[in-house]
């Protein structure tokens, strides 16, 4: 029982990171029906921004997190303007290839500055408690709570504010909505800013939990977050959160009760089976194709 509780806590921590990154994929997909494959690398850049801010300004955790979120958000907007906007009318494949290219560019740019793995300074005081045999660290709690907080905030923005309404409108129809006076480009920029800054936040928190960072750290976790988004129903924000926690949970529990070599194999097989029965993801709705 203690063992299961301990593993559940591990699963919550991993799942909340996946969920935060998955939100970036799903938001961009929702508004542009495009998969931003550079998102995993923006997560990595977020970790490095946090690392640089922590080294240069010696700030505590929250300001460092904000600096990284703002930095990555601006970078996301710039990438959208420079790389994706000119391709908005081009076939989807062109945009996806461009996104992959942007990702590789970001990796190699970081590699120029930091060819070696870097050790991230501890910004959060780490206290561990043992409650009834379960070891809980303050870091775990902070990561889980911060992620949940950011997700609730995002959900509020999208569902309850004007900006959120504009986002949903643009996502619904890009031809009619501008005629109603919605500034489409601005809304797309805001979506990119929010989505990528959540990736940046995930990067900073991840690098606090696992304090060795390198330019390739975003690749695998980016793929996994993308899968989370698909499982939850890509384009659906609550779906991305659920997908993240499901993938984190499945991964940890497979490693917990089966030989850990089977972890990715079993985890991804389960997800494939799930997609056979719900091809649009857990919360996804099939969109009728207009011919």
């Amino acid at each position: 029982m203690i063992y299961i509780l301990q593993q559940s806590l591990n699963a919550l921590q991993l799942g909340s990171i996946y969920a935060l990154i998955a939100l970036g994929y799903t938001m961009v997909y929702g508004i542009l029906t495009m998969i931003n494959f550079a998102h995993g690398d923006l997560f990595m850049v977020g970790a490095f921004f946090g690392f640089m801010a922590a080294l240069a300004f010696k700030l505590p955790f929250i300001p460092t997190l904000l600096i990284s979120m703002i930095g990555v958000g601006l970078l996301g907007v710039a990438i959208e303007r420079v790389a994706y906007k000119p391709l908005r009318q081009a076939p989807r494949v062109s945009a996806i290839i461009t996104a992959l290219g942007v990702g590789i560019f970001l990796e190699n740019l970081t590699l120029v500055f930091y060819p070696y793995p870097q050790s991230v300074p501890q910004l959060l005081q780490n206290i561990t408690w043992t409650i009834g045999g379960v070891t809980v660290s303050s870091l775990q709690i902070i990561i889980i709570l911060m992620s949940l907080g950011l997700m609730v905030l995002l959900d509020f923005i999208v569902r309850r504010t004007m900006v959120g309404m504009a986002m949903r409108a643009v996502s619904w129809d890009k031809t009619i909505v501008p005629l109603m006076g919605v500034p489409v480009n601005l809304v797309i920029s805001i979506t990119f800013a929010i989505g990528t800054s959540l990736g940046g936040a995930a990067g900073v928190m991840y690098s606090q939990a696992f304090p060795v960072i390198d330019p390739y750290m975003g690749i695998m976790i980016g793929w996994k977050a993308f899968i989370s988004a698909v499982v939850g129903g890509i384009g659906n924000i609550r779906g991305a959160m659920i997908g993240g926690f499901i993938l984190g949970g499945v991964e940890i529990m497979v490693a917990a009760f089966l030989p850990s070599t089977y972890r990715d194999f079993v985890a991804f097989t389960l997800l494939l089976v799930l997609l056979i029965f719900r091809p649009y993801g857990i919360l996804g709705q099939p969109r009728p194709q207009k011919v």
Partner: protein
Amino acid sequence: MKKGLLFVSFLIILSLVLSGCGGAGGGADTIRVGLVAELTGDIPAVGASCKNAAEMAVAEINDAGGLDIGGKKYKVELFIEDNAGKADQSASAAQKLITQQNVVAIIGPNASRYAIPASEIAESSKVVLISPWSTNPKTTLDAKTDASKKYVFRAAFIDPFQGRVIARFALDNLKATRAAVLYDVASDYNKGIAEFFKATFEGSGGTVVAFETYTTGDKDFTAQLTKIKDTNPDVVFLPNYYSEVPLQIQQAKRLGITVPFLGSDSWGSAELITLCGTDCESYYFSTHYAADNATPVAKGFIDAYTAKYGNTPDDVAALTYDSFGLLWQALKAAGKIDRQAVRDALAKIPNFEGVTGTMQFAEGSGDPIKSAVILQIVNGKFVFFANANP
């Protein structure tokens, strides 16, 4: 337009003809040697040490006027290729050095997962390859027949030996009876050494209570470590690279694992201390040489290296330097710059005294017979703890 094309094709043909003229391994007065190193990718500190030591070994020869072969002095020309921490790029780098740069021998790659693919190319092209740091047995063995490769050598001891040394150390010195292992199942080196450790440890009366895996690039090991904690081991063995070990130890401590951790020669980079901070303090690992317990030969190397680069050479640097030492001795013994002659001379080297101890190649094999040391991490330094003979 057509003329231009003709001219270009003429140039291409000319360059092909010219490069074919050189003969294997050298122009008139130079010895062409290739180096494949992990300059970028997941273990760049390894590549950097390797490159530093290689450049130092070559500079020493060239500063002395060249290497004396058959009464004539030859300068050494070093061709460095980055394998970017990728298996396919290791093979293509070896291919490039052999066919385009026309080298007489290749030193590197270091990690077994890169040395194995590169060694296949060297073997099929009949060019000597000496891997400084690769310890997986497969590097020098033919994948199909399990016979020794003819052209592949190494300067390091092999994993069965290292696995045995650490297992014995855990049993005898730490009095451990229950061991847990966490290793990277996607990497030849980690996988090999974990299995050899397990075999010896269980063969000598211990129990391996957890044998857990992950794949390269993972950063979250909490599921496996929670499982390890649940099995209550006396010691945890982490035969993984220096960039991952700090994360594993930090997470283990956060989960409340307090038993000693053990490592293998992949720990032996100064980067380990940088990434670990004080978390790796007092733990042990096996490696090739101890900088603070050096023979006179090693002392000379350590002083020269420290003077040139400003830091103590790690095991990769020492083994790279020894790989070049082996190559120089083989070239001298061969008496000519010829790929086949170098190979034959290298296999017969009687007793090479290197920085990492004396070595010679076992009959018909590319694996040297040599000893290992156990180091302990004390105040952020690697300190000699014990010797382990073959």
